[in-house]
C-alpha cells in the first residue's frame, strides 16, 4: 500500500487561558456564538410578505406535496442577525493579509460589485432575444479581447465556470484537435509539483497521467520531460509560474519539444497574476491556458466560488473552442450557438460545457478591474506582487528553511519547508499559531514536492506595513516551532473555535442537521 500524510485529532484541551472565566451565554464579548438555523427558526415564521394567491383550480395533476418539507424560516431581523453573526466567524481579505499561496487573495474592488449589479447585467435573462443583449455581448467580447491581448493568444472560450472547468475545456480541445487528425493519443504528462486538479482533469478527459520529476532547483526536469515524450503523448500540463513560485526558465524549450512530437502545451494559468501585463504566455509557445478571473482579475472568492475560468487558445487549438461564443460583425455582436456554429465557420467546436454563456457576473467584475488598471496598471500589479513575495522570501530565509532560495528570485509566492522545527512540531502548528496572531495561514503541505510546505502569496494589495507585521508574526511563531514551545500545540486559542476533530467528522459523517432524538420524544 501507499502511505501519505495523516490527519489530526485533538488532544486534551490546555487548561487556563481565555476559557478560565466562562460566560453565561458562551459569548466572549464581540465573539458571538450562533446556533443553527434549525435550532432557532420555525416553520410558521417567515421574512417575506407575499400577496395572497388568487383562488384557482390547481393544475398539478395530483402531485401536491402533502408532507411538511421541514424548512424553518426567520423574520428579516432574525435572519440578518443570524448571518451577520456567522459572518463574524470568518477570516477575510477585508480583515487582513490572506497569504494563501496559489489562491491569490487580493483586494476585491467594490466598483466591481456595483457594476455587476447594474440591472442591465444582473437582471438580464440568458435567452433574451439577441437584439436585446447587445451590451452584454459587447461586455463578453470586451473581456475576451483583453484576455487574448494580455496573453497574445488568438482563440478563447469564455464559458468555463471555474479554473478546473477551464482545465477540462483546454484538455478537451487538445483531444478534439488530435482526434480531428485521426490521432487518438493516450497520455498527458504532468509535473509532480502540479495542483491536484491537473491529474484529476486529465483523467476526467480520458487520459492516462504520467508524472514528470522536478529538478533540485524546483523546476520541471527538461531532460526527463524530453525522455517521456512519445507519439502517444497528447500534451503536457504545466503551471507557469509553477507551484513552487518559480518561473519555468525552460518554458520555450519545453513547448518546442512538445510541439516536436505533435503534442500540445496546456498551461495552468492559476499563477498568471505573477506575470500579467509583463509576459504573454503566447510568446512562450503555450497552446491553451485557463485564467482564473477570481485570482488574477480580482473577482471575489466568496468562501469557495463562484469562480470563472476562460481559456485562451493558440491558432492550432482555437477552432476547437467550445460553444457558445461572441463574435463581432461590423457593429453588431453575434452569439454563436449550436444552430449558427457551422454558418459562422466554427464547425470544429467541440461542443458545449455549460447551460448558458458562462459567468457573466464575473466578466463584469473582471472588466471593471482591467479597465481600472489598464495595461500600465496591470504591469504594476505583477511587479508589486513579485516584489512583495521576494520581500517576504528574503526577510524570512534566515528564520525558515527556503528550499529554493538559491534558485533565483521567486515570482508571486515564496515557499518554505518545515526543516528545523523541533521534534513533534509541524507546519500545521505554525499555521494555527498564525491564526492567533490575526492572520489567515499560508497554504500548507502544497506543493507535495516540499516537505511540510508553506506557500506564501502576499499579493500586490498589501502595504509594506502589513507585510512587515506579517513577517514579524511568522518569525515569532516559527521561533516557537523551532524552540518546541508546547503552547503552540494548543493554538489557536483566540479563534472562534479551537482545532477541530476532522477524524470524527469523517468517520461518522454528519452532513445535514437532524433533530435531536430527545427533543422529538419530549414533544
Amino acid at each position: 500500500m501507499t502511505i501519505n500524510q495523516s490527519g489530526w485529532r485533538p488532544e486534551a484541551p490546555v487548561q487556563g487561558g481565555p476559557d478560565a472565566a466562562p460566560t453565561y451565554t458562551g459569548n466572549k464579548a464581540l465573539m458571538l456564538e450562533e446556533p443553527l438555523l434549525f435550532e432557532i427558526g420555525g416553520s410558521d415564521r417567515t421574512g417575506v410578505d407575499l400577496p395572497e394567491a388568487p383562488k384557482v383550480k390547481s393544475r398539478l395533476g395530483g402531485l401536491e406535496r402533502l408532507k411538511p418539507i421541514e424548512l424553518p424560516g426567520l423574520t428579516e431581523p432574525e435572519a440578518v442577525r443570524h448571518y451577520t453573526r456567522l459572518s463574524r466567524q470568518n477570516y477575510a481579505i477585508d480583515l487582513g493579509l490572506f497569504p494563501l499561496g496559489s489562491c491569490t487573495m487580493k483586494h476585491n474592488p467594490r466598483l466591481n460589485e456595483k457594476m455587476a449589479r447594474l440591472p442591465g447585467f444582473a437582471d438580464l435573462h440568458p435567452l433574451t432575444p439577441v437584439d436585446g443583449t447587445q451590451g452584454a455581448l459587447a461586455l463578453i467580447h470586451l473581456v475576451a479581447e483583453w484576455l487574448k491581448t494580455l496573453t497574445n493568444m488568438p482563440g478563447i472560450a469564455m464559458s468555463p465556470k471555474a479554473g478546473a472547468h477551464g482545465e477540462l475545456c483546454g484538455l478537451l480541445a487538445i483531444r478534439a484537435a488530435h482526434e480531428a487528425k485521426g490521432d487518438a493519443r493516450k497520455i498527458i504528462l504532468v509535473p509532480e509539483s502540479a495542483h491536484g486538479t491537473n491529474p484529476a482533469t486529465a483523467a476526467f478527459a480520458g487520459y492516462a497521467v504520467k508524472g514528470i520529476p522536478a529538478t533540485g532547483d524546483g523546476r520541471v526536469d527538461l531532460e526527463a520531460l524530453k525522455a517521456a515524450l512519445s507519439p502517444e503523448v497528447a500534451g503536457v500540463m504545466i503551471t507557469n509560474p509553477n507551484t513552487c513560485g518559480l518561473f519555468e526558465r525552460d518554458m520555450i524549450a519545453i513547448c518546442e519539444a512538445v510541439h516536436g512530437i505533435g503534442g500540445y502545451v496546456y498551461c495552468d494559468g492559476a499563477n498568471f497574476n505573477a506575470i500579467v501585463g509583463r509576459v504573454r504566455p503566447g510568446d512562450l509557445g503555450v497552446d491553451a491556458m485557463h485564467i482564473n478571473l477570481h485570482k488574477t482579475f480580482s473577482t471575489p472568492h466568496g468562501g469557495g466560488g463562484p469562480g470563472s475560468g476562460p481559456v485562451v487558445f493558440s491558432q492550432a487549438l482555437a477552432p476547437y473552442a467550445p460553444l457558445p461564443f461572441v463574435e463581432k460583425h461590423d457593429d453588431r455582436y453575434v452569439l454563436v450557438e449550436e444552430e449558427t456554429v457551422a454558418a459562422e465557420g466554427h464547425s470544429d467546436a467541440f461542443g458545449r460545457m455549460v447551460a448558458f454563456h458562462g459567468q457573466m457576473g464575473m466578466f463584469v467584475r473582471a472588466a471593471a478591474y482591467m479597465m481600472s488598471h489598464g495595461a500600465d496598471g496591470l504591469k504594476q500589479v505583477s511587479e508589486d506582487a513579485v516584489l512583495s513575495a521576494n520581500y517576504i522570501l528574503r526577510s524570512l530565509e534566515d528564520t525558515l528553511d527556503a528550499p529554493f532560495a538559491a534558485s533565483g528570485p521567486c515570482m508571486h509566492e515564496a515557499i518554505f519547508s518545515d526543516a528545523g522545527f523541533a521534534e513533534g512540531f509541524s507546519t500545521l502548528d505554525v499555521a494555527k499559531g498564525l491564526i492567533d496572531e490575526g492572520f489567515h495561514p499560508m497554504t500548507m503541505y502544497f506543493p507535495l514536492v516540499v516537505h511540510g510546505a508553506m506557500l506564501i502569496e502576499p499579493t500586490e494589495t498589501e502595504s509594506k506595513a502589513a507585510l512587515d507585521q506579517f513577517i514579524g508574526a511568522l518569525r515569532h511563531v516559527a521561533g516557537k516551532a523551532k524552540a518546541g514551545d508546547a503552547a503552540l500545540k494548543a493554538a489557536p486559542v483566540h479563534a472562534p473555535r479551537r482545532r477541530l476533530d476532522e477524524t470524527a467528522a469523517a468517520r461518522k459523517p454528519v452532513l445535514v442537521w437532524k433533530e435531536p432524538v430527545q427533543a422529538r420524544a419530549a414533544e
Partner: protein
Amino acid sequence: MTTLYFTQDHEWIAVDGTTATVGITDYAQSQLGDIVFAEVPAAGTRVEKGKEAAVVESVKAASDVYAPVTGEVIEGNGALGDDPSLVNTAPESDGWFFKLTLADPSELDGLMDEAGYKAFVDGL
C-alpha cells in the same frame, strides 16, 4: 498451521493452506493515522498480485491496499464498514481487510517473513 508474510507495501498475509487473510501492518496504520474509512472487495472479486484490492482512508489521505498475491476473494471484512478504527486498534487481527483463495502459492516466495519485515521497516 498459519504462516505470516509481509510485503514492501506494508500488507500482511496470513496463509493457511490455500486460503489466506490480508491486512495492513501496524507500521502502516501508525503512518496513516486515524483511519476513517475502508473499502474492502466483495466476495468473488478476483485480485491480482501487486494490484489495487482495497482502499483505506485517513482524513487527509486515501491509500490503496495492494493484493500480496493473486486470488479470489472469499470474504471482505464487513466490520470495517461500521468501525474503521479497527484498522488502528487491531491492524493485524480484527482489522483484517479480506480473505482469499490463493491462485498460485509460489507467489509467496518473494515476500518477507516477520523478521525480514521488521528489518525492512527499521531501515525506512
